[in-house]
């Protein structure tokens, strides 16, 4: 598991990263089972909402309004948060964010921090930076704890340890906590985690969290979770640092009514999250007295410039697209080479990288459209995937060596052929003759060279019939009834 690379800068291309995973039968079974369970719960709870489509439209509209005036809402948030005792920091790059967070922790002289699950911290590789600065991070989300103890990486944005089953969890806990008495019983495993974490909650004075929503109107930060570990981290420490992507802001407090309904049902198949925490700045004598918000750009503002791609920033990280995706179902999240796997990762990661890296991700989809159908904020993921493919192609086709790339060659030839009916007719004939040496007596092709071998590795192909449709049409008696 340790060979998993979730940094788009040096991760292998998707098809290559997927290969070892496709051979990991245990992982595939775990992913299929977990996503089946979540999907079934989600479907049930979405079906009971009469106004689901209206809610989706409302959420998309709220997010679009926010993104249209993102500067205004972020400044409004900063003003409100500052006025209520918080400190807002702006980080344009992951490096900026890491430096800001490490500095805040160092100023408190803390040697340990507790963390709530935050994919954004994984996005900026925060933990290695903390460790390098002599600060030990403790993950307190059960899934993140499993991964941290198991020296593994997240594979899902809501349930990061979705690819691990409970026997594997028992094995990790036994090895790392010395708890050889444990069984596979989920209650026993949870109790072990609770015992392990309780000392951290009580003893560590600094916490790092993400944010589900930032409310511009009031300066409030919102975190929803299922376990209650988040509530511990948000209330017990003296110092609290929230790391949030700039797209997390929403204009009004009442917008949460729409967002929270959609998020809980889409993410975990619950009517409401077991714990929904909202706080504004600092309250004297109650909760953390030293509160910071780090606003992270890391390529997000560059996405704003594209009309189609801008939808990407509507995302509320519910993972419904991951759960429904037939590609993700086979590979899980690790193949995507980023903390953001699945359909949303396939569009978000290459954009965060400004297409300098992760160019294989827009192609990691069969364009089946299941992601768009479930997305609570109506991100047209297939549309963006196709658009990104065009951007990748436009860059690549300028490279000289692409002349010899069989895919580019095939596409160019096809274009010339399809541009003229007579060339198309001739290509049909040539294709028929050209494929004859590969066509067996039964009329089927079992093996092809070059690109064709990618098809025939698991599929036969029927040889081209002797008469095309247009030939048949022409051969018909011309007398019309």
């Amino acid at each position: 598991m340790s060979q998993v690379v979730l940094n788009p800068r040096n991760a292998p291309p998707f098809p290559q990263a997927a290969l070892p995973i496709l051979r990991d039968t245990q992982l595939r079974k775990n992913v299929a089972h977990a996503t089946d369970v979540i999907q079934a719960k989600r479907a049930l709870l979405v079906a009971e909402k009469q106004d689901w489509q209206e809610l989706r439209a409302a959420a998309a509209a709220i997010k679009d309004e926010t993104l249209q005036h993102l500067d205004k809402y972020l400044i409004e948030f900063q003003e409100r948060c500052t006025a209520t005792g918080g400190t807002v920091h702006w980080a344009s790059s992951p490096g900026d964010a890491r430096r800001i967070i490490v500095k805040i922790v160092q100023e408190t002289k803390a040697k340990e921090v507790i963390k709530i699950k935050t994919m954004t911290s994984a996005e900026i590789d925060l933990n290695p930076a903390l460790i390098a600065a002599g600060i030990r991070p403790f993950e307190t989300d059960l899934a993140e704890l499993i991964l941290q103890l198991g020296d593994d990486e997240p594979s899902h944005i809501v349930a990061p340890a979705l690819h691990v089953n409970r026997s594997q969890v028992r094995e990790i806990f036994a090895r790392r906590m010395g708890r050889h008495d444990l069984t596979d019983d989920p209650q026993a495993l949870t109790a072990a985690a609770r015992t392990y974490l309780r000392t951290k909650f009580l003893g560590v004075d600094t916490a790092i969290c993400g944010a589900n929503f930032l409310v511009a109107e009031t300066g409030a930060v919102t975190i929803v979770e299922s376990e209650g570990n988040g509530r511990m981290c948000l209330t017990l420490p003296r110092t609290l640092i929230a790391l949030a992507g700039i797209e997390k802001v929403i204009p009004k407090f009442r917008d949460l009514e729409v967002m929270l309904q959609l998020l809980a049902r889409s993410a975990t198949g619950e009517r409401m999250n077991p714990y929904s925490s909202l706080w504004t700045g600092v309250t004297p004598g109650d909760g953390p007295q030293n509160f910071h918000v780090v606003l992270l750009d890391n390529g997000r503002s560059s996405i704003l410039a594209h009309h189609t791609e801008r939808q990407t920033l509507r995302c509320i990280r519910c993972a419904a697209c991951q759960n429904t995706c037939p590609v993700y179902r086979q590979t899980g999240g690790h193949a995507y080479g980023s903390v953001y796997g699945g359909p949303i990762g396939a569009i978000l990661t290459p954009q965060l990288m400004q297409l300098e890296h992760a160019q294989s991700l827009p192609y990691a989809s069969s364009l089946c459209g299941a992601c768009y159908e479930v997305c609570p904020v109506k991100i047209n993921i297939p549309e963006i995937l196709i658009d990104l493919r065009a951007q990748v192609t436009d860059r690549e086709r300028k490279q000289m060596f692409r002349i010899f790339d069989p895919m580019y060659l095939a596409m160019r030839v096809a274009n010339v052929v399809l541009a003229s009916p007579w060339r198309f007719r001739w290509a049909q004939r040539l294709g028929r003759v050209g494929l004859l040496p590969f066509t067996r007596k039964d009329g089927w092709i079992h093996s092809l060279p070059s690109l064709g071998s990618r098809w025939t590795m698991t599929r036969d192909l029927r040889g081209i019939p002797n008469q095309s449709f247009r030939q048949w049409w022409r051969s018909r008696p011309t007398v019309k009834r």
Partner: protein
Amino acid sequence: MQASLFITCYNDTLFPETGRAVVHLLERLGVELDFHPRQTCCGQMHANTGFRAEAFSQAKRFVRLYEKAEAVVIPSTSCVAMIRDQFPGLMQELGNESLRKGFHALLPRVFELSEFLIDKLGVDDVGAYFPHRVTYHASCHGLRGLHVGDRPFRLLRKVRGIELAPLENLDRCCGFGGTFSIKNAEVSSAMLSEKLRDLLATRAEYCTALDNSCLMHLGGAMHREFAPMRTLHLAQILASTETTPMEEFA
């Protein structure tokens, strides 16, 4: 009723029997058909692989060719989805106002086969006879792109002698995805293997669909594995009658 066939490039070349079945079926229902010999492709393969400039020329050709058609019938859900979902954006980008207007005037007259039968002709009983056990695979573009809904089932249920076998996980992709099946051949094959398991569990003799591209994928795997199932475009089932069984245009 007059209608123009857009048979699509791959049906023309690889699945002419589907085109022939469409002709038999629609002429039996009294539709007067024409086939424009200048037609080639809708540009879907290029657009979906990222070759947008190449897709432009196919889109232009399609609009110019069918501008005057009373109705266009297309026996392929993904090609219709290309025209409905992607052409508007391409037309916008091309910036040719007369072409864009021509396209938007044409769009309501473009029909996928099952839409044409049910919405335009108003028939669900086409007088077909097909005494076999059949399962229907819902192609993603038909299901989520065109929202064909229960149209194929309404047509299939009226076929005499047919035994319909429901397919588990009907809404799950078979893993074809055009060039996805080449670029991500291994993942595509993993998806295919799972779909094949669901298909074979139906114990149907035939798997049908409204899109030969999925069927080429599924049929290719069935042939490779000597599976006791074959693929057949819905048009071929609907064209079959007691007097003209499917074999006539297979």
